[in-house]
């Protein structure tokens, strides 16, 4: 069986992540793209039809609709796709609000509804998950996850505009939250400091969010004004610490024209560092990352052979934490469960 996929949106997410991943997975066919960027699509995907959303929804041959548009249109498009009987994948964040996400879940009866939390397949995250699972780190008491960059000037675009679900907390924080929920489950409390700090910034471009567990503390940070921007993970465990520098390479590899089939795809040249008490360090090569795993999971779910790679409930939990972060920053207090 081949499932026909229509991709709505051909910005960074559609072009760099969804189209190449869908095309690279056996059993999925990129059948249509909905976008005004006709030229770019014709060049990269000459065999793929460029259509309107209405045409896609009305086409009984389309099985799966992928929504990779600006965050504020996720809900409307996903709702219409579900109403048309399509399976739906939404790029993160799920929707503008947790309430919207719940409404989509209610509307998804019998259809697949999933969110593209691709960073579960980052090489460094897979490696960290393995280290924790093996017990190499002991009990984890502190975990810091970074998405720092040095982009002192705004570059324009919907991500930088004010509004619900805009800014880096929703854009990048959603990745970091999903990873943490996968590792440690739901926290007892969330305390967030969010700010728009760059000249002329209207949307959050800095976040530092503390997730409180019993003993464990997790810090998520995104900072657009960090010249030393390489730290990714810092973890303290009772048996060892773990440090990882450098972001997973898949996005940059794909954005610069690399293909998922290339041997270098998913490889991370910067190993992590396991630090033992006393300071001895051991390099830990990262496992190979692979965002195709998400779409393989979607295909297998469509075939009925596997559960969803990211369930709608898991993505809803991310939305609830994003909202708790907004509420915490607005009220300047911890939001407890």
């Amino acid at each position: 069986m081949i499932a026909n996929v229509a991709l709505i949106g051909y910005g960074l997410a559609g072009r760099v992540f969804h189209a190449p991943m869908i095309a690279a997975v056996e059993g999925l066919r990129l059948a249509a793209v909905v976008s005004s960027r006709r030229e770019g699509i014709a060049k990269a995907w000459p065999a793929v039809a460029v259509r309107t959303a209405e045409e896609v929804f009305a086409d009984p041959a389309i099985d799966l609709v992928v929504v990779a548009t600006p965050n504020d249109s996720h809900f409307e498009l996903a709702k219409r796709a579900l109403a048309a009987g399509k399976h739906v994948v939404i790029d993160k964040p799920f929707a503008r609000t947790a309430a919207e996400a719940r409404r989509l879940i209610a509307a998804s009866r019998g259809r697949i509804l999933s969110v593209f939390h691709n960073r579960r397949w980052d090489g460094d995250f897979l490696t960290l998950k393995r280290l924790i699972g093996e017990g190499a780190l002991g009990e984890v008491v502190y975990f810091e996850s970074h998405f720092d960059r040095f982009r002192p000037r705004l570059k324009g675009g919907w991500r930088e505009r004010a509004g619900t679900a805009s800014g880096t907390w929703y854009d990048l924080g959603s990745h970091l939250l999903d990873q943490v929920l996968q590792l440690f489950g739901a926290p007892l409390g969330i305390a967030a400091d969010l700010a728009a700090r760059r000249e002329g910034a209207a949307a959050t471009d800095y976040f530092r969010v503390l997730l409180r567990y019993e003993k464990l503390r997790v810090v998520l940070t995104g900072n657009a004004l960090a010249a030393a921007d390489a730290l990714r993970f810092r973890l303290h465990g009772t048996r060892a610490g773990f440090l990882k520098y450098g972001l997973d390479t898949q996005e940059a590899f794909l954005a610069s024209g690399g293909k998922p089939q290339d041997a270098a795809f998913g490889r991370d040249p910067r190993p992590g560092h396991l630090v033992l008490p006393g300071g001895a360090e051991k390099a830990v090569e990262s496992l190979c990352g692979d965002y195709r795993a998400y779409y393989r999971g979607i295909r297998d779910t469509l075939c009925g052979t596997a559960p969803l790679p990211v369930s709608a409930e898991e993505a809803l939990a991310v939305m609830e934490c994003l909202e708790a972060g907004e509420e915490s920053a607005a009220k300047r207090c911890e939001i407890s469960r």
Partner: protein
Amino acid sequence: MKQPLNAAVIGYGLGGRVFHAHPIARTEGLRLAAVVSGRKAEIARDHPGVAVHASPEAVFADPTIDLVAISTPNTAHFPLAARALAAGKHVVVDKPFTVTGEEARELKRRAEAAGRMLTVFHNFRYYADYLALKQMIGSGVLGEITYFESHFDRYAPLVPDAWREKPGPGSGTWWDLAPHLIDQVLQLFGKPEALFADMAIQREGGGATDFFHVLLRYPKLRVVLTSCFLAAAEELRFVVHGSKASLIKYGIDLRNGVDPKPGTLVFGDGAEKPAPAGRADERAFYAAVRDAILGEAPNPVPVDEGIAVMDILEAGEKSVAERREVAL
């Protein structure tokens, strides 16, 4: 030549031994005249000829003693400092100044009434890493500072049987180590608008705070003070992000000599270069105390600066209790 000032140290734990008696004995113009402690043999070995008293009363009653340094468990700081001032002594109190802001303010009143110098031992102002940092911030090499993170991490999974590790006022790492980090930040950036604190006991069998993560909010700048005692990767000291460059500094606790681990400057284009290495002199604090007593220089840590640190410590406790940001 002028007669040296006679100093007495009360308490001969780690603080009294390493941070007070040792530098006092090495500072020109000061004489270590007496130590109050039960550790007679140790003191006789470290400082032969120095009087050892079992009770602080002997020091307060001795008219030849000019200066008393208090390095006892934190709850004893206030009563001992009050008695020393009443006896006409100049007083250095180890950090934390006291265990409440009210005690600190009361000591200020008493020092003013007695006309004696009162100061708090915020010696981290004289550390190599901090001096280099201050110089870099002043020189503008980092640009405008938008983020500053200061660490005091260790890997010490076993909880020792010590007063610091038991519940009670002024115990735990927030009161023990944070005063150093707070004082440095107040010196660098002034008073924050607000503070959000999180604390925890992470070690098996711990009785007092051994983890803190405290966010100080300024209009644009954010400051994080943090300490973890289960940090095998323990060496990080400063992370500073400025509009022109970042500074990453590893290695802690350098109070004397040239810093063997200067930081790294990372610029916006990714270029890196070694940061200048600071140089510390462990006698600097007590040399400044001497000059202040002699009227040749201002108090190195004016009492109001010690009180400002206390206000942050108390706000931190309040923030944790209420799980909300506390405005300052």
